[in-house]
């Protein structure tokens, strides 16, 4: 009896595993000879460039200071670090021998040309929703880049997850294929935005919380998440922003990296908006419409609430005269005094150079966020434009302020400007932020 029961169990297990392995196995797609860049239709290449900008491909596939798309960028996950691969058309180290079909399979199914599984650090759970002609356009774009010979770096992931088959298990549980159905309750622009955001834009990859196995919790879509130790705020009804996101505000922010009701894009959003500046305006508008809709209908009432928040925020921003009166003189750890001396040169109202002035702090997402990490990152490292770009500069204070002083001024800013409950564990969060930035 026992032997029989055991054999049944063993056979069942073998069938399950066998079934899993069979399911997980992918064939190698034959390599193709790279063709001259001139053979690709320039208008498709241009379309691909625009879509690649929306997908922010260059961000994760380019090492800091390195050649574009040649890989090496560390994507940190709770399970280890995965390095973005070389997606230049180099035949030996890049994707030069990948056929169009192989590239489609990679984005839809997370599998390389040779049939290996890719870790979901490459967000194919989003890219799977992109349609074939868009993926083909991105293929044309990548195949016309300059090939760069650069070996891919193997991921730093502990056993047993460093066995790529584990990614197959993840896919079995969490990868939902297929295109996103149009929602007839919304117009074409909204649907375009949904297609882009859920697909190539992969916004939820940062802005949606993840479960213990690292998959997005679809029932908590856009409820806030993490990107590179920065808090990606909730974009749905739980948005912590002082002013609600209207479509216009979202468009300004995504297109120009700044909007009057929310401030400057910083941290991981900086390269995203840099890319979106090069995407077609209509697509950025569509994204903005969709994203804004997540936090409620984009109607007159929403716009009014936004302006009211702006007005209230302006009143909280100190004037120079108020600052002059407010300095308390209780010394180094007093948050108000530190603010007056270190921050208020720029973070005050008035003055004749509005383009040099930051947003009113009461509106800043980082001040209103449930996680003090974003504000701490900004205090430590400042805000800087991309190389040679005109853009807002805020210096970092990691050296001039001690930990106690940073905690003090962060707490002051939270209370004084957001009126929300005080953060807890600012000091612990600061330690993490310092470690992360090496400052």
């Amino acid at each position: 009896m026992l032997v029989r029961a055991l054999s049944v169990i063993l056979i069942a297990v073998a069938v399950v595993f066998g079934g899993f392995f069979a399911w997980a196995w992918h064939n190698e797609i034959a390599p193709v000879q790279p063709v001259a860049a001139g053979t690709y239709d320039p208008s498709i290449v241009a379309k691909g460039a625009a879509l690649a900008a929306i997908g922010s491909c260059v961000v994760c596939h380019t090492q800091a200071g390195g050649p574009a798309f040649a890989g090496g960028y560390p994507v940190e996950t709770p399970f280890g670090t995965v390095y973005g691969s070389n997606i230049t058309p180099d035949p030996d180290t890049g994707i030069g021998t990948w056929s169009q079909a192989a590239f489609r399979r990679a984005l839809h199914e997370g599998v390389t040309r040779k049939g290996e599984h890719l870790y979901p650090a490459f967000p194919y759970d989003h890219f799977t929703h992109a349609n074939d002609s868009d993926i083909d356009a991105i293929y044309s774009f990548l195949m016309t880049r300059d090939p760069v010979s650069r070996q891919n770096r193997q991921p730093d992931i502990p056993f047993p997850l460093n066995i790529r088959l584990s990614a197959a298990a993840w896919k079995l549980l969490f990868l939902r294929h297929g295109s996103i159905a149009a929602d007839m309750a919304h117009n074409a622009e909204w649907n375009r935005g949904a297609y882009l955001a859920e697909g190539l834009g992969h916004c939820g990859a940062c802005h949606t919380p993840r479960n213990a196995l690292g998959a997005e919790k679809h029932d908590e879509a856009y409820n806030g998440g993490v990107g590179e130790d920065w808090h990606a705020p909730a974009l749905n009804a739980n948005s912590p922003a002082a002013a609600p996101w209207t479509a216009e505000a979202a468009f300004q922010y995504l297109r120009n990296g700044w909007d009057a009701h929310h401030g400057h894009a910083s941290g991981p959003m900086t390269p995203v908006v840099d890319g979106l500046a090069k995407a077609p305006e209509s697509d950025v508008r569509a994204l903005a419409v969709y994203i804004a809709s997540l936090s409620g209908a984009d109607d007159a009432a929403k716009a009014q609430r936004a302006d009211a928040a702006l007005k209230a925020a302006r009143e909280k921003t100190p004037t120079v005269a108020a600052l002059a009166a407010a300095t308390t003189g209780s010394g180094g750890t007093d948050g108000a005094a530190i603010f007056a001396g270190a921050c208020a040169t720029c973070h005050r109202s008035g003055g004749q150079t509005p383009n040099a002035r930051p947003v009113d702090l009461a509106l800043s997402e980082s001040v209103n966020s449930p996680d003090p990490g974003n504000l701490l990152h900004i205090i430590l490292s400042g805000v800087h434009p991309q190389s040679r770009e005109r853009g807002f500069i805020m210096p970092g204070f990691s050296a001039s302020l001690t930990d106690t002083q940073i905690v003090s001024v962060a707490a002051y800013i939270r209370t004084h400007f957001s009126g929300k409950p005080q953060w807890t564990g600012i000091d612990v969060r600061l330690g993490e932020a310092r470690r992360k930035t090496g400052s």
Partner: protein
Amino acid sequence: MNIPHSRRAFLAGSGALVISIQLNRAFGQDAGAPKPSGPKLPGDLAKFPRLDAWIKLEADGRATVFAGKAELGTGIKTAFIQCAAEELDLAPSQITMITADTGLTPDEGVTAGSHSMQDCASAIRYVAADVRATLVELAAARLGLSVADLKTENGAVIAPSGTKLGYGDLVAGLDLHRDARPDIAIKKSTSFSVIGKPLARVDIPGKLTGGESYVQDMRPEGLLHARVVRPPGYGAKLASVDAAAVEKLPGVVKVVRDGSFLAVVAAREDQAILAMHVLEDAARWDNPVQLPKQSDIQNVLRGLPNTPTTILDRGTVGQPGVKGLRAIYARPYQSHGSIGPSCALAQFDGGKLTVWTHSQGVYPLRASLSKLLSLAPEQIRCIHTEGSGCYGHNAADDVAADAALIARALPGKPIRVQWMREQEHGWEPFGPAMSSQVSAALDAGGKLIDWQYEVWSNTHSMRPGGPGNLLAGQYLAAAFTPDTPKPIPQPEGGGDRNAIPLYALPNARVISRFIPRMPIRVSALRGLGAYLNVFAIESFMDEMADLAGTDPVEFRLKHLDDARARDVITKAAKEFGWQANAKMPRGRGQGFAFARYKNLGAYCAVAMDVSVDRQTGIVKIGKVVAAVDSGEAVNHDGIRNQIEGAIVQSASWTTLEEVTFNDKAITSRDWSSYPILRFPDMPDSIDVQVIDRPDQPFLGTGEAGQGPTGAAIANAVARATGARIRELPLNPARVKAAIGV
């Protein structure tokens, strides 16, 4: 460069012109009248031939030299010392160089236009040589020897017997209150021991160890700090200001108001800054003058009334040749961007005003202040004190006027005015936006047969001048209007500086269109029109070389007879390793350019390679090699330093810089809104080869590199990408748009 009054009169041949130089020195020397005839003395010595205007010997054997040109951070003071030391046979350490002080030095006008070596160093050499000869004559008389028996060395006259008479011993008999002798011989280069030999800059050690070096470092007893509140835009009038709250702020001594000129004075600098911000918030202004659309500025400028002058008309233009090309080149407003915003100190005591200023022209400033304050020039002393690099007419004169006005409101108190970063960026007079059109044709042999060039530009000089050229002067209750702008005539030129190519062109015409109306405040920025004109001409030469199927270096040599021009070109090309038609990987290219500054000054050729980032459009400069011929080289390292600096500064202008404005005001107010190149953007290497021309006249150096660098970059980018960009700057967006996906 503004031609100083006295020289203009001299050139007009006004005969015996009495120049009254107001000197407060104990000796009470005056510089004398210029010589109306006879062999000409060199440089500004011709205007001020009296020896004791330039030099004084002390009883301890030291010499004090009075130079009318100022040290702007270029190292010129050290070069002057070398010139004096060489001709005097006195160690450089024994020479005190005093520069640009209306109380002490001759009126050498403005330190600009790369004229300092020609105008001042030449004079110093002759003066020193004359004094040395005089000392020898004195010694000969005292020793009963002939002049031919004596030599000078290290501050002493030496007899064949070995008897030494130190210069200090001879001072008693020395009368330098006479004109320099035009027949005095200066040394030949073969006997140099100081000129052309390395000498470390005299000012660097102090600047690197915290010495008091700048006007910003002055701290006289009782100093008060002032800040000015400027309008929101050009021409806005102060409607009202409630200064009551400001007057009560800690440390505030006074709020000064005169019409729309508004300032606050306080005991501490931080108090003045705080008070300025509060006063700024309290002030209510009428609307500023409306500004044109920035995106349309070239059309706007070309559409304004202009006066055309044909500055070159050679042969018969209109030859069609076998092939031809036409192109338009343009440049936006660009900023001096001095790293230290302008600063001045002033004190008004018993009816006399003293101003410490980094102005390039202390005498013109004094004349202007005299009219601004209705004070006789003799009652004003302007003392040049270094500021940060100015690169032309920045806000130095304006802040001096601010300080003078405030000092008058608080007599007896030393007043310090420091402009804020936003004020310097917003109110300085910019390098003018300008454009040019060029068309040319090639003959069957691939040589230029026809050349037509036309340039549109505002004036490049609104220096004081009248009191309306001082910013504060325009905003007083009894406001002064700025001077009517005038073009600087050829051969120096303003907007048309370097508009005439040095190349041998059989049929050529150049028309300079002078636009008086200035929607944006402008004046001289290093190089003046030469930057755009050389950019245009040298870019176009490359385009024509392409059309002719000839290597660009070879093409230039084909059209140049000037041997020194050929020398810098071949030297730069050789040291760079220029390969004709070099095949480089996509995205990399080499570029070359050449010019002789004003066709009168230094020769400079620049070769470089660049790589263009396809994804971002960023132009990264790799190796740069330049060759420069500044005539006789006094301080080789000084020349190299200036050309290296020119290359970096021009690279920043050419790949990045552009003043921005909306309909009300300048909007580029700090380094975030007016970025300049930073360390990571620097070229990989810069190698400057100095071609020394012993015994040849000095040609200056400071502005020779900017034009060729700009064109070399554009030429390299064209070669790297196949995209020819003619509108400055070649910023990432413009380059990306030109190269496409």
